[in-house]
């Protein structure tokens, strides 16, 4: 048996001041959901619990009060959130994401989790812009806790500089644009225009058994306009020539059984379930 894997908790960083945006980035709405809600939902299927990182003065904010919180303790910036989470539960790993990544998708997160190396201090993506580690979409293992605290107490506040010098597994991003963040109203408008132009939004699909073999892959992120899993399955059947009819399958969205008519949202993780055969 393998050594037990430290469980994974999720942390959405939403304690910034959003100075360049001019308004709270976590509260910005995109396709009917706030950035904070969207990030929380992306993490939920992958983690045993999901928390929002806040400054002490944000605890009562209605948007943030709805979720379990991790409150900054004595440091500032994104590093403070990561540090507070590691203090709150030093025995688990933290999947940390910033709330201002409008193009982040379930596939990018699943890829990170599936390739996680718990023997390192962290598993992170190599930035598609400058090849350096991206600390704000990364898994911080328990082993990084003491070293990171010592980094902070030496007056260094940049989590990126910490990862540059730490034993980190660096992965290439499956979708290079997925970690583009937005700091200004122009960034936000560009992200929205990008979605509007394609008409679709990213949906992550995982395949098992016969569907995996027929699709020739375990997972993919598709840009789809499908409103329901039924529509999505029709699109994918045309693409991959699946032989199983939909009425023999069940469907799960974000790791829960759902109806074929359940509305699909951007970033949903969908699994079509062929007839099962346990035992």
């Amino acid at each position, binding site marked *: 048996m393998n050594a037990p894997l430290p469980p994974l908790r999720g942390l959405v960083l939403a304690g910034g001041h959003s100075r360049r945006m001019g308004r709270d980035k976590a509260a910005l709405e995109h396709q009917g959901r706030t950035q904070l809600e969207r990030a929380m939902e992306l993490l939920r299927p992958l983690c045993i619990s999901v928390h929002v990182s806040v400054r002490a003065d944000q605890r009562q904010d209605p948007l943030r009060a709805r979720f379990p919180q991790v409150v900054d303790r004595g440091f500032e910036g994104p590093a403070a959130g990561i540090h507070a989470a590691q203090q709150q539960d030093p025995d688990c790993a933290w999947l940390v994401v910033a709330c201002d990544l409008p193009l982040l998708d379930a596939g990018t997160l699943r890829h990170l989790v599936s390739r996680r190396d718990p023997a390192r201090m962290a598993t992170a993506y190599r930035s598609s812009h400058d090849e350096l580690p991206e600390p704000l979409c990364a898994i911080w293992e328990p082993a990084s806790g003491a070293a990171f605290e010592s980094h902070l107490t030496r007056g260094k506040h940049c989590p990126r500089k910490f990862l540059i010098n730490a034993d980190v597994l660096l992965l290439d991003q499956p979708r290079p644009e997925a970690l583009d963040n937005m700091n200004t109203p122009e960034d936000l408008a560009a992200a929205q225009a990008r979605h509007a132009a394609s008409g679709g939004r990213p949906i992550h699909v995982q395949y098992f058994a016969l569907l995996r073999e027929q699709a020739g892959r375990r997972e993919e992120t598709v840009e789809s306009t499908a409103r329901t899993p039924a529509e999505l399955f029709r699109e994918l059947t045309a693409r991959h020539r699946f032989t*199983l009819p939909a009425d023999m399958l069940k469907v799960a969205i974000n790791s829960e059984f759902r109806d074929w008519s359940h509305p699909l949202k951007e970033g949903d993780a969908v699994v079509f379930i062929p007839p099962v055969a346990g035992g």
Partner: protein
Amino acid sequence: MNRFRFSHAPIDAAPLREQLHHPSCGGFAAFEGWVRDHNEGREVTRLEYEAFEPLGVAEGERIIAEACQRFGVERALCVHRVGDLDLKEVAVWVGVAAKHRDEAFRACRYIIDEVKHRVPIWKKEHYATGDSGWVNCERCTQHAHNHDAGRAHVHS
């Protein structure tokens, strides 16, 4: 620890049985599913199990909770193998400890029956003839293809 688990390594029943042991329990029933060398008239040489684990663990846990409530048992565990299995290996293990034998037997039976029908696990049989097939998938596909409406697939 979850009461329903997947194991990528061979299942060792002894520690599982030990976990169920309790002074208040006078009966223990276990079921083991083994890899058999034939199925539906074909000689089978090995099996491959694949699972959608996050949903499988949640559904397996629901089944065990149902069994405990329905039959009044307190202690039950189920472990299902995934990966490549040879003949005679244990594919699934179910154990139930209860005050008396009757509820232990019935809860054990309920758990294995429900697991087979509800947990997202898939079984691929490899045959002596060299080919292979996903159980419950390939034949149904042919039925659908032939517009054979006679036998709807049970997939509750």
